[in-house]
C-alpha cells in the first residue's frame, strides 16, 4: 500500500473518530431485533449485528475507541519512557543499570499477560485499558531514547554545550531531545499500531470494556456465537483494523526511511 493511500486512510480513521457522532448515521446502540444479522443493504451498507444494530455506525463509533487507546497508550509510553530513558542514557552509572534491569523485566512479561494483570488490578474501564496498554509501550520508548541519548551525548556539539557550562537539564532539553524526535516518531507510529492491536485483543477477551460498547475487539467478541450465520460480523471489524494497521505501519516505515539514510541502504 502506498504512502498516499495510507495517509488518506489515517485521515479517514481520525476524522471518523473525531466527528463520528455528528455523521448522518443510525445510533450505534439502537437495537432492532427484527432486523438482526442482516447482510449489506441500502439501508445498512455493512449489514446489522446480532441485535439489529447498524454495523457501519458501530465501525465508525469504534474508530474513536481505537484512537483513544492507541494515542493514549503511546502518550503514556512517551511521557514515562522518554524522560527516564534520556536520564538513564545521560547519567549512566547505577541509575542506568537499574533502569535497564526494570525495562528487561517489563519486556520479559509477554505483552498480553502484563496488560491483563494491570486491568485486573485497576478494574475494568477504558482508562485502565489505556494504562495497561501504555505500560506495555513505555519500555520500548525508554529503550530507544536511552540508546539514542548514549550516542548523542558523545557528539561534539553536546560536549561543546557542556564545556560552555550548560547543565544536564538544559543539555537534555535543548540539545538531545530535538534529535530524538525522528526516531521517536517512527517508534510512536509503530507503537500506535501495536497498542490498538493489544487493546482490541483485551476487549476481545472480554476484559476492560463491556460487550455492548461498539469497540472493534468487543464487537467481535460479542458476535462470536453468531459467526457462522453472519460471518460479516467478524470479517468487517477485522478488515477495518487490518487496514488501519497496514496504514500505520506503512507511514512508520516511510518516516524511518526518510529520517535514517542507513536503513535505506539496507533495503536495496
Amino acid at each position, binding site marked *: 500500500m502506498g504512502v498516499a493511500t495510507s495517509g488518506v486512510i489515517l485521515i479517514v480513521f481520525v476524522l471518523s473518530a473525531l466527528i463520528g457522532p455528528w455523521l448522518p448515521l443510525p445510533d450505534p446502540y439502537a437495537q432492532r431485533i427484527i432486523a438482526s444479522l442482516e447482510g449489506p443493504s441500502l439501508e445498512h451498507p455493512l449489514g446489522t449485528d446480532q441485535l439489529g444494530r447498524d454495523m457501519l455506525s458501530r465501525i465508525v463509533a469504534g474508530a474513536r475507541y481505537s484512537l483513544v487507546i492507541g494515542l493514549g497508550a503511546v502518550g503514556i509510553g512517551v511521557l514515562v519512557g522518554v524522560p527516564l530513558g534520556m536520564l538513564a542514557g545521560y547519567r549512566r552509572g547505577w541509575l542506568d543499570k537499574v533502569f535497564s534491569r*526494570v525495562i528487561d523485566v517489563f519486556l520479559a512479561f509477554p505483552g498480553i499477560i502484563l496488560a491483563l494483570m494491570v486491568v485486573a488490578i485497576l478494574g475494568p474501564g477504558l482508562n485502565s485499558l489505556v494504562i495497561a496498554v501504555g505500560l506495555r509501550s513505555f519500555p520500548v520508548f525508554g529503550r530507544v531514547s536511552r540508546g539514542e541519548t548514549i550516542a548523542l551525548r558523545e557528539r561534539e556539539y553536546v560536549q561543546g554545550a557542556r564545556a560552555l557550562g550548560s547543565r544536564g537539564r538544559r543539555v537534555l532539553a535543548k540539545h538531545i531531545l530535538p534529535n530524538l524526535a525522528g526516531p521517536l516518531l517512527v517508534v510512536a507510529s509503530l507503537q500506535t499500531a501495536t497498542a490498538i492491536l493489544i487493546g482490541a485483543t483485551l476487549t476481545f477477551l472480554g476484559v476492560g470494556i463491556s460487550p455492548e460498547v461498539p469497540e472493534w475487539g468487543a464487537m467481535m467478541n460479542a458476535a462470536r456465537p453468531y459467526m457462522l450465520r453472519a460471518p460479516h460480523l467478524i470479517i468487517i471489524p477485522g478488515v477495518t483494523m487490518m487496514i488501519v494497521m497496514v496504514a500505520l505501519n506503512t507511514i512508520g516505515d516511510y518516516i524511518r526511511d526518510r529520517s535514517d539514510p542507513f536503513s535505506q541502504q539496507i533495503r536495496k
Partner: protein
Amino acid sequence: MLVAYAARRLLDLLPTLLLVSFVVFVSVRLIPGDPVLAIAGPEATPEIMAEIRESLGLNEPLFTQYLDYLQRIVRGDLGTSIRTKQPVWDEIGRRLPATLELAAAGMVVSLVLGIGLGVMAALRPGGPLDAFARLVSLFGVSSPTFWTGLLFVLAFGYYWRIFPIAGRGGLDNLVLPAVTVALTSVAFISRLTRASLLEVLSQDYVRTARAKGAKPYTTIVKHALRNALMSPITVAGLEFGRLLSGVIVIEIIFAWPGTGRLLINAIQFRDFPIIQGLVLTYAALYASINVGVDVLYAVLDPRIVLD
C-alpha cells in the same frame, strides 16, 4: 566451557526473576477486593475472617509476607486457588503441557515457515515469491492474532472442514492453532531472514564460492545460510514472548485446554494465587528459553567469546 557459560547465564536470570516475583507479589496485593472475604464466603463471622487472615499471614508486614512467599515458592508451593481450593501448582501443572505443546509447535512453524519464506524471497528479490512473502508478512504483522484464528475457524473448520477446530488431541488438532499463533512471528522472521541472507550473499566469500563454480544450491545452503541464520535465531528467543501472548488468546478460540483459559478465569474471579503463579511460570519459561537461545547462538557461531 559451554556448560559453564550456560550455568552462568542461568544464574544471571535469578535477579530478574526475583524482581518479577516481587513486582507480581506487590501488584497482586493492589487488586481491589478482600481475598479473605472471597475465601470465607459472604456469611462468615468476623472471628472466622480474622482466623483466615491470621492463617494466611496477612497480618504480617508486606516484606515478611514476601520472604515467606519466596520460601514457599522454593519448596514448590505456589499456594491454593481461591476459586477451586486446589493447589495452584496442580491447576497450572495440569494445563501447562498443553500450552507448552502449542507454543513449541508455534515456534517450529514460525521458524520453518519464516526461514523458508525468507530464503525464497531472497533468492530473487523483486520476483513473484518475494512479493508473496511480503504479502504474508504484511498480513501477519497487521492482523490481530485472534481475528486470524476466527477466520481459520470459519474457513478450514466450517466451509472446507479440513481440520478440527476445537480441543487437543492428534496432530490435526494442532495445525490450525499452531499456524495461527505463528503467523505474526513468521512475518518478522521471514523479513529478517531475507535481509540477512541478502547481506551475506553480497559478501566476498560467497562471490568466491560462486566464482570457483559452486552450484547456487551449494552456495546458499553450505556457505551463506549458516551465517544468515544467526539473526533469525536470536529473535526467535524474543519471539517466544510474542508466541506465549498469542497462545493465551488462541487457546480460547480453539478451546485448547491450556493455561490461557485458566488465566482469563482467574482474572475475572480475582483468583490472585493463580494469577501470581501463572505470571511467574510464564516469566521463568520466557527467561530460560532466552538462555537456551544464547547458548545455541554460541554453538552456531564459534567467534562468540563466552564470557
